[in-house]
């Protein structure tokens, strides 16, 4: 079941980050993912 308020992260042990990236790039990645996750709050819940 897919619910549009569940946002997939990078990986279980580093959900919002990637230890393989340099710290500065990782921060940019985290900010993008966090914002995309939060944007889901702006839409109504639908289930498919």
């Amino acid at each position, binding site marked *: 079941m897919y619910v549009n*308020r569940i946002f997939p*992260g990078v990986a*279980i*042990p*580093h*959900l*919002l*980050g990637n*230890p393989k990236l340099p*710290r500065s790039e*990782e*921060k940019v990645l*985290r*900010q993008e*993912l*966090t*914002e995309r*996750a*939060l*944007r889901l*709050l*702006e*839409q*109504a*819940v639908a289930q498919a």
Partner: protein
Amino acid sequence: MELRVVHYLNQFFAGLGGEAEADLEPRAVDKALGPGETLQGYLGTAGKIVRTIICGDNCFSDRQEESLAALLGMVREVEANLLIAGPAFAAGRYGLACAHLCDAAKRELGLASVTGLAPDNPAVATYKREVLIVPTGASAVSMKQALARMAAIGMKLARGESLGPPGVEGYLPQGFRRNALAEESGAKRALAMLRAKLSGEPFVTEIPLPEFGRVPPAPPVSDLSRAVIALFTTGGLVPKGNPDRLRSHAATSYGRYSIEGLQELKAGEFEAFHSGYYTAYVNEDPNRIVPLDAIRSLIRAGNLAGVHPTLYATTGNGTDPRLLERMAEEVGPELKRAGVGGALITST
């Protein structure tokens, strides 16, 4: 061999007084008291209540460690084979004391123990896995049936006999699965169940599924740039040293940690306590599980109005959904009062 039984009661059931005496300190009387007299009847000649131990409800809950140590000492002194606590029915403090004492007696003294509680007593959710609990009614009206079962189950435990399934013996399921030999194969049993189900006849499943219920989804946040959001995680993130002793699996509690004024979560200040994933990456940079640095950037950029000053954290593996329900019930109103519009829950 006659079993040596210790019976635990609170001040009220021991006949020492009501709420005014709830500070009563642990004490022992070397005979059956109150409900213990009925219990002795059910034990018959197979067991003897050699001691009743008593503690006031407030005393136990306010000074838990020293009360527990004193009570366990009193149990040890008489070389008991079995501890029977209560029953406490729906009573909150008394129920917790009974369950906690049974758990400690089993853990620290290796003693067989049993208590009786109403299924909705808060102690049940906390201790049902560790403690043998006979379900009772909400009040002492159900005293006799409860004592009869507690006696029967307690004697089996003390003799090291194995118990049958919860529904047969009359105790609350502890979530264990034990191997047993059935007369018919799984295929035949499954088909029999299916046939019963299709023809509308009653049947008993062998694997009851948990019921999670349904929660109506919250309406959307109309504009993120005007919303304050709260941060939650089930990834077991706690301040270094785990001050609240959150369990790393099957959590029974959650923590509230201040993130007020913090620009990010620093390694060495926060760490993950979670037995279900490899936590080194999170310990190296806790923002990987609770992205506070990103949240602060979004606020600075004007894309988000603010973040709630408390982080709520628990461990999500093997966690009883009832803990999460309680968490929602306790935290929800707090967030509403604080004007929080949405939440980011990071899960592993």
